[in-house]
């Protein structure tokens, strides 16, 4: 399906990441935002409110992040596409309802503009400390899709992509941006509506009385209906059967929850996207996402100048994790270097998937500027000298 022309600001703009995110949401057909102001995600709410009258969108500032996500889930069931924007502390509060979103298989988009944590941390400084939280933060078993943009243009593109993924797989999708990407201003090209692909909601078309809200179709995704059309359906956050009625036993738990994982896991190859640069001949590959991947590209150039063959694997989709690609690369390369603005999260996944075939070096950007390439370079230089395979994550201290 093509996007509706309504409200799409086709053309070239100079936008911050947060603003680009809102434009992406509007282009994707999002007409509902509920949120609670928090640095550094406020501009998403602001921009959405400014644009709301034009596209007749609904905006509500709720009393906290808990209710913001609850209201969003409610609104989605009325047929709207919805988004909420927050940062670490807000994401922590949303955890319970991410679980509800997963259990009710409600498509929605959650933007997390990461800042330095834990707790209040430093509100206006970039961080990437919520990556594992996005995957594991709510109780119980679930799979989630998380995208990580590295520029305002990607904020725009990924927001549309996030909506499409969420509608296709009926699941909450997280956009794990960071303060750096959210606040830099760059050129953002918004294409004409007809070039924007939109995933329509998977609506149920059969007879009204036969509708089962969690009956999976041939693609393994249950079709939805909107409230108010006489389907009289029931949904619950309790473990349930196809009809949405709670059944609390082992069998139903298996029947209900296992497919929540499968419905993502069986499509990982369709979902996962990454960008590779010069990995064909690389001895060292920098695995990165978000803002540090910009630094990685700079570092490659520098390193190649000094004769070290370095490549880059930039993860557009962080969750599900591109296990296969890492495992393949691990067999070819000597080492992975993972720069992150935290104290080691995704690097654990890289270590896991390299099965001891490549050394894994962690470079923490929690204590330095994003555009600092010196540490990255020195890590590359040191690991290239490393003779043997080392177990465990290596951190070179400067």
């Amino acid at each position, binding site marked *: 399906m093509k996007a509706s022309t309504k409200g799409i600001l086709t053309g070239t703009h100079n936008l911050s990441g947060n603003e680009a995110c809102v434009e992406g949401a509007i282009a994707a057909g999002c007409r509902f935002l509920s949120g609670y102001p928090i*640095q550094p995600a406020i501009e998403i*709410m602001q921009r959405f*409110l400014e644009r709301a009258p034009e596209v007749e969108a609904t905006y509500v*500032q709720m*009393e*906290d992040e808990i209710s913001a996500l609850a209201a969003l889930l409610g609104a989605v069931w009325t047929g709207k596409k919805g988004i909420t924007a927050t940062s670490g*502390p807000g994401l922590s509060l949303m955890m319970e309802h991410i679980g509800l979103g997963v259990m009710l298989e409600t498509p929605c988009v959650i933007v997390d503009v990461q800042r330095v944590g834990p707790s209040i941390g430093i*509100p206006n400084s970039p961080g990437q400390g919520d990556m594992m939280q996005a995957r594991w933060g709510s109780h119980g078993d679930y799979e989630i899709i998380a995208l990580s943009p590295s520029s305002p243009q990607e904020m725009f593109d990924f927001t549309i992509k996030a909506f499409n993924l969420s509608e296709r797989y009926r699941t909450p999708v997280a956009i794990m941006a960071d303060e750096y990407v959210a606040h830099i201003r760059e050129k953002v090209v918004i294409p004409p509506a007809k070039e924007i692909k939109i995933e329509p909601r998977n609506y149920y078309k059969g007879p009204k009385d036969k509708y089962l809200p969690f009956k999976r179709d041939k693609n393994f995704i249950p079709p939805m209906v909107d409230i108010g059309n006489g389907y009289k359906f029931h949904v619950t956050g309790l473990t349930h059967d196809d009809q949405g009625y709670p059944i609390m036993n082992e069998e139903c738990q298996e029947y209900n929850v296992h497919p929540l994982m499968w419905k993502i896991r069986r499509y990982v190859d369709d979902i996962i996207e990454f960008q590779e640069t010069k990995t064909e001949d690389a001895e060292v590959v920098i695995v990165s996402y978000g803002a540090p991947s910009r630094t990685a590209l700079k570092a490659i150039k520098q390193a190649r100048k000094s004769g070290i063959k370095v490549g880059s694997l930039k993860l557009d989709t962080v969750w599900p994790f591109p296990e296969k690609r890492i495992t393949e690369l691990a067999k070819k390369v000597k080492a992975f270097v993972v720069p992150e603005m935290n104290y080691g999260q995704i690097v654990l996944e890289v270590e896991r998937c390299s099965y001891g075939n490549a050394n894994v070096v962690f470079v923490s950007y929690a204590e330095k500027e994003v555009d600092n390439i010196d540490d990255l370079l020195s890590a590359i230089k040191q690991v290239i000298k490393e003779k043997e395979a080392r177990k465990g994550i290596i951190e070179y201290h400067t």
Partner: protein
Amino acid sequence: MNPIITAFAKGIKKSGVKPSRISVPSDIPFEPEVVKHLGVDFFHTIRGRAIAFGTGLKLGNPDLIVVPFIGDMMTIGGNHFVHGGRRNMDLLIICVNNFVYREIGGKSAPIQKCEKEQTTTQKFSPYSTFEKPFNATHLANSCGAVYTARWTALHTDELANSIAEALNKRGFSVIEVLLPGPNYYTSIKETDSNLLNFYYKNSVIKNGEAPRFVTITPKEKIIVGKFIDKERPTFIEQYNAQLSKTLGDKFTPHGGKNG
């Protein structure tokens, strides 16, 4: 914030309470130097949880005098506010109201641009212009507060007196302080400091006014004063009384005799 802190310092002095007994859990950051000057223990807690945190402080050590400063106008922490009042937890709430709610009309842009570096708690709020604000006093009273007062930040003396009075009062006390924030009186095109002056001038003191009638509307004068001052057993008093009744000698009152 400064006029409020000044009044707080004055209030502490006037009340005769030893500052080291006072703990301030707050969701508004204080200047560290101010804390040293005041001589109190200060906890900058996360948004909305100052009252809940204070409840723990008080029950952990009943000798403390706990004064939560809340800036979020009961948005995210509204629940703790009403429940604190219901329990009559021995807390003095300083509720800094900077009018983040506004009535419709007047302004061209619905929300203020966020250009300056701000922390979450130095509140910028895009509270949309069509929401009715809480009447904090009425709400506090309806959930059981024993002391409520409202002053603008310029009523320094009155505010200090109220604080002194409330510091010596047992139970859930609420002092609402009006501080200029985003433009509320949309017809007045004034800078913040002048706006404060405007609040001051546009207010009228009506001690003992019924809480139901002290709603702040753009068209009328702001009613300030002390509205409620009543007695009700605090949580700890009630706890000690009830448990002594049912447990008798087996029970040691929490926090000693004085609660």
